[in-house]
C-alpha cells in the first residue's frame, strides 16, 4: 500500500512512518522546508518538501497514494501564535482534503486529539460521544483541534472522502523533531528540583501504540468516526511517581495548588522570554491543572486496538528522552535508570537496526 504521512517528522508522524515501513508499505513523508528531519533521517521513505498551508505543494505528495495520514499540526503551548495554530489545523486540513479529492484518495485518517472530547474537574472517564465546550478560555491548541474536526468533517462529506479521526491522548515515546508537550511533561518533572505534582490526571499512551492505532483506523475505522487512542487513566501523582521510579529520581514531594502552578508558569514564561529558551511550564498548561483528561478507548479496542501499559510507555519514552538533549545534563546526572528503561533503549535500537536492515534487504 502507498501511504502519505503529513508531518512525518513529528512525534506521531515519525512513529507512524516506522510502523508503516514495518508492514512493508511504501511511505511518502511530507515535511516543511527547513524543518528538523532527524527523526526520519535514514529511513527508506520518499520525502516531499511542502506545507499543508501551501496547496500547490500538496499534489506532488498526495498523487498516487492509497491512503493519507494527516498528522501535521502545531501542537504546542508556547511559541506559536493562536491564529497560526488555528490556520494550520483548519486551513491545512482543508487543503489536504482538497488535494486528496483531486488525487482520488478516498480515505484519510486525521490526527485530532482527545482534548476535543473535553475534560472533567472530577475523575470521570469520557468517551467519543463527549465534546469539549467552545470555551474561549481554552488553550489555542484545544480550540484549534475542535475547529479542525468540524471543518474537516464538513469538507470530507462535501468532497466524498472517508475521514476517520484519531484522538490520541497524551502520547509519549521516542522520535519526533522536537520535544512536544507530552514528552515535555516527563522532562519537566525530572527537571523540577521541587518534585511537585498537581491535581487532576491524564491518559497516558505509547506513541507507538498511537501510530499502530492510526493504521488500524485506516483499515477498520468507521467513516466520520472519532476514536480515542489512549491507554491508562492515571492521576498526575501516579504519573509523576512512575516517572520517578523508572528514572531513579525522587518521587513527588508535594502537590502544588493551581494558584501556585499558575505563578510558577508565569515565572517560567518570563524566564523563557528573557533567555529565548522554552519554559518548563506555561500558563496554558497551568490552566489545565485540576482537570482529568481521562478517556476510554473502548471503541478503538473493539477494532483490535490493544495498547501497552502506561508504565511501559513511560519506560520507552524515558529511554529516548534521557539519551537526548531534552533532559539536561545536570538532570541526567541525578538519574539512575531502571532495567526496564535500559531494556527499552536496547530494544528500540534493535528495532531500528532491524527495520533498516529489512528494508535494505
Amino acid at each position: 500500500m502507498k501511504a502519505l504521512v503529513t508531518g512525518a517528522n513529528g512525534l506521531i508522524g515519525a512513529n507512524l512512518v516506522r510502523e508503516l515501513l514495518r508492514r512493508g508499505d511504501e511511505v511518502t513523508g511530507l515535511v516543511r522546508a527547513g524543518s528538523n528531519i532527524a527523526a526520519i533521517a535514514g529511513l527508506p521513505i520518499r520525502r516531499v518538501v511542502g506545507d499543508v498551508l501551501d496547496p500547490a505543494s500538496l499534489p506532488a505528495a498526495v498523487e498516487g497514494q492509497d491512503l493519507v495520514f494527516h498528522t501535521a499540526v502545531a501542537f504546542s503551548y508556547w511559541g506559536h501564535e493562536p491564529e497560526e495554530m488555528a490556520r494550520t489545523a483548519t486551513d491545512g486540513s482543508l487543503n489536504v482534503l482538497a488535494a486528496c479529492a483531486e488525487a482520488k484518495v478516498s480515505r484519510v485518517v486525521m490526527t485530532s486529539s482527545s482534548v476535543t472530547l473535553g475534560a472533567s474537574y472530577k475523575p470521570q472517564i469520557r468517551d467519543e460521544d463527549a465534546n469539549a465546550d467552545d470555551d474561549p478560555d481554552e488553550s489555542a491548541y484545544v480550540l484549534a483541534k475542535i475547529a479542525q474536526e468540524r471543518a474537516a468533517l464538513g469538507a470530507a462529506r462535501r468532497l466524498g472522502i472517508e475521514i476517520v479521526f484519531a484522538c490520541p491522548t497524551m502520547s509519549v515515546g521516542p522520535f519526533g523533531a522536537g520535544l512536544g508537550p507530552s514528552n515535555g511533561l516527563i522532562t519537566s518533572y525530572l527537571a523540577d528540583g521541587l518534585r511537585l505534582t498537581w491535581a487532576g490526571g491524564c491518559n497516558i499512551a505509547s506513541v507507538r501504540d498511537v501510530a499502530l492505532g492510526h493504521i488500524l483506523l485506516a483499515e477498520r475505522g468507521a467513516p466520520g468516526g472519532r476514536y480515542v487512542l489512549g491507554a491508562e487513566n492515571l492521576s498526575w501523582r501516579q504519573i509523576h511517581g512512575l516517572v520517578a521510579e523508572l528514572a531513579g529520581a525522587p518521587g513527588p514531594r508535594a502537590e502544588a495548588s493551581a494558584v501556585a502552578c499558575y505563578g510558577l508558569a508565569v515565572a517560567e514564561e518570563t524566564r523563557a522570554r528573557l533567555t529565548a529558551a522554552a519554559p518548563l511550564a506555561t500558563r496554558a498548561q497551568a490552566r489545565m491543572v485540576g482537570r482529568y483528561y481521562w478517556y476510554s478507548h473502548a471503541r478503538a479496542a473493539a477494532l483490535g486496538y490493544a495498547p501497552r501499559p502506561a508504565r511501559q510507555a513511560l519506560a520507552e519514552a524515558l529511554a529516548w528522552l534521557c539519551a537526548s538533549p531534552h533532559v539536561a545534563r545536570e538532570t541526567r546526572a541525578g538519574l539512575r535508570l531502571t532495567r526496564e528503561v535500559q531494556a527499552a533503549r536496547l530494544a528500540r535500537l534493535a528495532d531500528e537496526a532491524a527495520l533498516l536492515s529489512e528494508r535494505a534487504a
Partner: protein
Amino acid sequence: MAPPDPVVNTVAIAHDSGAAGTILLDRALAQAGFQEGAGQRIEAALTAKGACSAIVVPALDAFAAGSPAAADPRLVEHLLDVLFDLGVTDAAVGSTRDTAALWLENRDVFVAADLLGYRYETPAGRPYDVVDLSEETEDGVFPAWGVLGGTALSRAWLEADLRIVVAANRTDEDDGYALCLSTLLSILPNTDKDYHYRYRRDVGEVAAELVRAAPAHFAVIDAVVSAHGNGGRRAPLPLKTDTVIVATDPSLADYVGALKMGLDPFVSELAAPALRAARPTAGTRIFGPLEAYPDWINVEPALVASTAARRAFVAADRAVRPALQHVDRDLFPFRHPANDWLNRALADVASAGDGGVDGARLLSFANLAIAQAEQAGTAFGVMFDKDALRRHDAPINVDPATICKADYDGLAAELSVQADLLRGVVPDDQGLRWRFDDGAVLFDGARRYPIPFEAFAAGVEIHRAIQFMNDYAGGRALVTGVDGQGRVTRQLERNLYLPQPNYTAFGGGVVIDVTKIETVDYAPARQQMFWKTIKSENASAIADDGIVTFEALGGDTLVTIWGRQQFCLPPMWAVIDRDLTPAMKRVLVAEAYHRFFARTFANLEAVAEGRDVRIGRPWSDASDGESLPVDWAADVIKRLQTQDSLDLVGAAKSLFQRPARAGPEPLRVDADGFRHFAAPPRPAAPSPLASAMSGALSDLRHAAWVDAGAQP
C-alpha cells in the same frame, strides 16, 4: 641552510635627551650588533634564494595618531630603510586586528596603519607593504598538546628571513607594562585577542609558546616618548624618555625595558614565563644605562591586581574595556552608540588625578567589586548551575619526553597494592567502601549496568573514563601509546575539576588541577585503566590516583572505580581542623563520595547512551569570540520590546511619560472667541499590558476555584 643565530644575546639602550629618535635607533642598533646579526641572516637568504624578506611588527594598538602607546611610524620607517640598506629586498609592516576592532570602526590593519601615520614608503623613498598577518596562515606550527595547539600562524611571519618586533614603551594595567612580548601577540590570527589569548588561555603560556615556536629575531622598544602613568595603554600619559632599546630577543628587551621602568620584570603575567626562559645569563651583554626613567609613574599594583581579578568575569571585562579606553572618536568611532555613551561618561573618570592616581583607585575598587560578583557567581554556578560555568582549556603541562617507559610499566602494580588496602572494609548502604591513609582517602564503589559489556565498552571509551567523572571541567589528553588495534594504552592527561567539595567555592576553593600518567589494559571481557597524579599546577591536590574497571557480568556490565585522593582546602576552610571532629569528618567524606559515585555512574550510563556529559559552556572558536555584552543587552531589550504581552520596556517608559493635559486642545478659535473641539474619540482598545493583567486575574480566579474544590 638555516640562517646563523646572532652571535650572543645582546641588549643596547641608547639614551640622549637631545637626539632624535632615528639617531637613537641607529645607535642602539649599532651597539646591539644589529648590522652583523641581521646582516648574516640577510646574506644567507640572498645567497640561498636571491631575495630577502623582512617583517616588522610594530605596536599598532593605539587609539589616536601620535599616541605614545604606539610605536612611532617614523621610527619604524627608518628601521625599514636600515633593512633595505643592509640588503633586504622585500620589507613589510605586519599586524592583525585586535579586540578593539569589535567595538571600534577603522581598526582594520590597513586603515589603522594609515590613520596612525604609516605612509607605505620609507623616508628614503622605498615602498613597503602593510600586511594583515591573519590572512594567510599555516597550521601545525605549535605542538598539539601545548597551549596554542591547533592555532595557525601567519605564513608571512614564518617565512620572513628577518622578523622584528617594535614595541612602544608603555605601562599597562593588565600586566604592569606592555612591551615586545605584548606586541608580539598581535601576530596571532584571532581578532578577539583578549578572548582567545587572555580569558581562555594563560596569556603567559601563550607568549612563551609563541616565542618558542616562531621567535622574533630582533626586538626594539621605542622609548623616545613613552606612555606612563596608571592609564597605561588605556589612557596614555606621554613622557619624554629619549631612549631606544634594541635586543636580540624580545624577552630580553622586555626584561630590560621593565627594569628601566623601575619594575620587577616578573610582575607581568604575560611576560613572566618567557622571561624565565630568557633571563640574562653569563653570555648576555647589556649596553647602556639601566637606571629608571626620571619622573616615571607605574601602574599602581592594586590596579594591576584588581584588573587581573576583573578579567575572570569575562562578560563584565568585555563590557568595561570599551567604556574606559581613551579614543580619538574622529579616527575610530564607536560601533555601538551605547559604548560611545558609556565611554563619554566613564573614560575620564577612570583616569582622573595626577598620573591617573585618583581614577586608578576608583577603578581598582570597581574592579574588585566586579571580581567579587564573579566569585560569588562562580561559586553559585559550582553549587547550583554548573552548565553556566565556562569550561577550562588547559594544555598538557608536562613534557611527554620526561616520562619514561618504567613510569608507565610500574603503574598497575603500584596502584593494585594500594587498592587492596580496602580489603575487609564493609561497604555502606550505598556500596561505598573507604578509609583514610596518610591524610588521603582510599575509596571504591561499583555499579552494575543492565547493558551488555560489548555495548557498554563501545559506548564508553575507557581511556576517556576520567573525563566522564563528576565535576570534570576540562583538560586535555595526549596519547603516548596504542596497541595493535589502535586502542589507547598509554597517555598523559591533565584534568581540571570543579572545587572539591563544591561548597568550598564559597570560600576561595579553586579548581582541582592535576596532570596524570595513565595506562590501559584490554581483555575480552574486562578493561582496566590506571592513573597516577604527577603534577598539580596550582597545588590543589596532593594525590588523585585511581583505577577504573569495566567487566562483563552475565549480560550486564560491572563498573568499579577505586581511588586515592587528597585535595588541598583553601585557607578559609583549612583553618577548621576536621580531624578534631572525626564523626563530622566521616559524614562529610561519605557524603562527598556518595555524591561522586552517584553522579559519575550516571554520567557513564549517559555516555553509554551516546550523550555528551561535559559540564559548562564551551569557549567559542570564532575569531571574534562571543558576541559582545553590549550586543547581547541590546538584543534582550529588543526582545522585551517586541513581546506584546510582556512589554516591560514599554511599561517602564510609560512610568516616565508626562501626563496628558487635563483638557482637550481646541481645533480652532473662531472670531467670536468660541473654541471648536473634535468629536470625542472612541474608547481605545485596552493596551496589551492591560489585557495581559486582566487575563492573569481571570486565570488566578479560575485557579483559586480549582484549589477550593469548586467547579469553575
